């Protein structure tokens, strides 16, 4: 049975398989290795995923959505047309699309996968990712941390001993991991990160700055125009280090204007974001008890690390030029695939062991003895950056006389006051009545290789054990809910696969038509009409030829970079 490795990203997703001759990344139905993580509904209510959906973000922005990975593990409902979805369900649709592509490529059913998640993803978000896969009919054998995945891809590529720092900035998250590679062991020393710092934030910062400079009221900008401006800015962001001045023709509906983007303007706009890069790096180094001199190399991963300003900031910080000889967009997928190969015990990977860490502290709330009226304090049980899998037990006692219940709250985070951390759930266990401090309960936290937590509470006097996989947190689904979700999503019709290539071209032509003026617009309109006429005639060979011509024409006319 084949196990595929999946990189489920904020902006783009990819998948691969470990074959006997190494990593093979799987192209999707359009022949691309990257599938944009965008989901939409077409006019008949069919699901569209990937580039076709991305092309439709502008014209059909009310029934298309991207970057929903940021809402994983929450109960936000995202409305597309008349239906609404959670981020988990949307992710599940992307996974289903990847799964189908893999099955077509392998000519065999696929039911097991390794999925990468940001190292700093919380327990909630991990569970949500796992559930998304289950809804798509994939069993998750392992969740692997993205920087770890990137690191093993690099480690196995070079087979060099040493200590590396991996900086992974994708579309929505920033992760730092320090990894040592020796004697076939890949040991993660520490991970830290920021769950809300990524390439999309840079585009948002640019958008906000543009609105402020041109005095445009954000609420007055129509939805589809906003999307177009965002896309124009994204293109400008990609080109900013290579072109001294870019002039964008921006249309806000209420106001049409030209705006020039210079590298200086860009770096002044994104300074606040770059400042946020430093803290996780320092924390990771501190936790690993290393100084910058101990690092053999700094490796950049993730599409957003292509930005010149980011590279400069990192270069200044470490005084070295960071390396990035693997494609930063694909390296995480390669790492996930390697992990899948490891799990399948592929002979080529027999002698490799990977160890990872828990990136945040997990603990429980206990009474503040100095001031019992103050909020509870956090009693750390698993300290952050402990090597996993691990299982640790701490004993606590009753805090008042005649107490009959012990309320065990599970928190994740670093703050001294329990409430100010992320609450993962709770568990109430009964204890025999008695004077304060007589009854003791042992709380055991077990953290597995996928980063999922299990809590056992044992009452010492009665010997009874109560256990929970964290349940009560928001965003968590019960088994029946997952089953229902799977049925509901399975009932959704996907856009016919074979038509997708034509669909993506028409969507692209539509976008280009709106974005251009004059002769160019007429030209695009003319070739689109021709192509549509060919489609009507339904002669496959003719369509094939027409599509080729259509692509070439559009390529010659398109000015925006998309991937």
């Amino acid at each position: 049975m084949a196990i595929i490795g999946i990189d489920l990203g904020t902006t783009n997703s990819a998948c691969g398989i470990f074959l006997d001759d190494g990593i093979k990344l799987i192209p999707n139905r359009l022949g691309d290795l990257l599938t944009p993580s965008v989901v939409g509904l077409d006019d008949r209510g069919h699901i569209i995923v990937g580039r076709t959906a991305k092309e439709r973000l502008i014209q059909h922005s009310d029934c298309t959505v991207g970057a929903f990975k940021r809402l994983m593990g929450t109960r936000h409902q995202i409305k597309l047309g008349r239906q609404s979805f959670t981020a988990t369900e949307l992710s599940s649709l992307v996974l289903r699309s990847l799964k189908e592509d893999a099955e077509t490529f392998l000519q065999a059913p696929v039911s097991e996968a390794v999925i990468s998640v940001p190292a700093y993803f919380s327990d909630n978000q991990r569970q949500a990712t796992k559930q998304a896969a289950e809804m798509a009919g994939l069993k998750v054998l392992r969740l692997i941390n993205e920087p770890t995945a990137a690191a093993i891809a690099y480690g196995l590529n070079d087979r060099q001993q040493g200590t590396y720092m991996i900086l992974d900035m994708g579309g929505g998250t920033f992760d730092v991991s320090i990894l040592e590679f020796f004697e076939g062991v890949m040991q993660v020393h520490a991970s830290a990160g920021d769950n809300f710092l990524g390439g999309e934030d840079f585009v948002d910062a640019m958008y906000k700055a543009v609105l402020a400079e041109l005095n445009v009221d954000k609420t007055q900008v129509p939805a589809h125009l906003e999307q177009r401006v965002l896309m124009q800015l994204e293109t400008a962001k990609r080109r900013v280090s290579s072109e001294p001045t870019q002039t964008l023709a921006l249309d806000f509906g209420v106001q049409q204007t030209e705006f020039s983007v210079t590298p200086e303007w860009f770096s002044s706009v994104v300074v606040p974001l770059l400042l946020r890069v430093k803290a996780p790096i320092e924390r990771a180094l501190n936790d690993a008890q290393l100084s910058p001199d101990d690092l053999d190399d700094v490796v950049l991963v993730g599409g957003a690390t292509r930005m010149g300003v980011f590279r400069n900031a990192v270069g200044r910080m470490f005084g070295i030029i960071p390396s990035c000889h693997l494609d930063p967009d694909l390296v995480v997928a390669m790492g996930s695939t390697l992990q899948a190969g490891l799990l399948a015990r592929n002979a080529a990977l027999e002698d490799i062991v990977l160890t990872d860490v828990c990136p945040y502290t997990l603990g429980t709330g206990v009474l503040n003895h100095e001031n019992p009226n103050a909020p509870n304090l956090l009693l750390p049980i698993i300290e952050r950056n402990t090597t996993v899998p691990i299982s640790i037990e701490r004993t606590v006692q009753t805090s008042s006389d005649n107490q009959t219940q012990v309320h065990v709250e599970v928190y994740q985070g670093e703050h001294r006051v329990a409430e100010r951390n992320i609450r993962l759930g709770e568990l109430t266990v009964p204890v025999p009545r008695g004077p304060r401090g007589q009854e003791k309960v042992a709380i055991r936290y077990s953290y597995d290789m996928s980063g999922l937590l299990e809590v056992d509470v044992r009452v010492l006097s009665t010997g009874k054990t109560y256990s929970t996989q964290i349940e009560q947190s928001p965003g968590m689904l019960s088994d029946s809910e997952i089953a229902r979700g799977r049925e509901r999503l399975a009932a959704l019709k996907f856009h016919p696969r074979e038509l997708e290539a034509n669909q993506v071209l028409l969507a692209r032509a539509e976008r280009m038509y709106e974005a251009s003026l004059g002769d160019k617009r007429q030209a695009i309109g003319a070739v689109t009409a021709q192509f549509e006429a060919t489609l009507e005639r339904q002669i496959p060979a003719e369509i094939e030829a027409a599509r080729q011509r259509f692509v070439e024409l559009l390529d010659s006319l398109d000015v925006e970079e998309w991937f």
Partner: protein
Amino acid sequence: MEAWRILGVARDSDVATIKRAYALKIKQHRPDTDPVEFQRIHQAYKALLATVSRQQSPNRERTPTTQAFSSGLIFSQQDEQGEAVAVAPAAAETSASPQLDPPQPEADAEADAAHQETERRRQAARQAQAELVQDRILQQQARQQAFDAILQRVTENFQNQHSLIRLEPWQFLTTSPWLLDGEFNHQLSLSLFKLLVAHYHELNTHKRRTSRSRKRYGPVQPSYAVLALFDQLFNWQGQQTWLERYADEQVARPIFNRLHDGPDVDPVKGLRGHATVLKVERDPEPAKATFNWENLVGWLVAISLLVQMFKAVFFR
């Protein structure tokens, strides 16, 4: 020690040997298949590495990471330089002092010449010292001028409410080389902190005084980005306890809480596309059929109305 035995290495093994042994062991007891034994081996490995590195370099100085990065290290170097400046005049005096010894009366002419010579040297020394003092005064003046200029701009910024939520008005701080001077940095940090505390104090009293509807015309809450910039320049979080004692703790606490909470992030804002998002905090409570008097009254009224209608229809 137990750890040596677990890894099966000799007591005088070096780091490379320990690593090799560890690698070998955990390939037999993989973390995914044998987590308990793996954790035991891992603990032993960590303990051994710590022991060995202590033995090999008992007093190896390690630059604390945070310092290496943050401006802290730059400040401490500058502190030393600052001291060097302060020490310099004293050194000049000591080097000049041998000249101050009373000249030995050997021969009149010689003594005279010597005396003149000494006098000249003394003069030169005095002048050098005066120059140094002058230099220091000038430097002090320059420092004071720079300080005043910066403080003025800072105060102006505080008067313009808008600048507390934007980063650009504060960018000039980062360009001043004086910030690298320890003493200067400290003084500016205190002045700025005082202004900020005063602003928070105003915020508090304003909040208490005014109703919610008028709140937005009052003083604004400084944005995280601005506070974070200050913290980065002046290492406020590092001196939290001290600063809280220095200012009013009650007022200063929100500043540190805000810094600790990190940047505002609203995950919904980052979505692409224009789909409507409904926020659901938790499971909707199942609607319970509850009995209450209002319902009862409603039903009674409805029934009596029906009865009236029946009456109207059938007993006309």
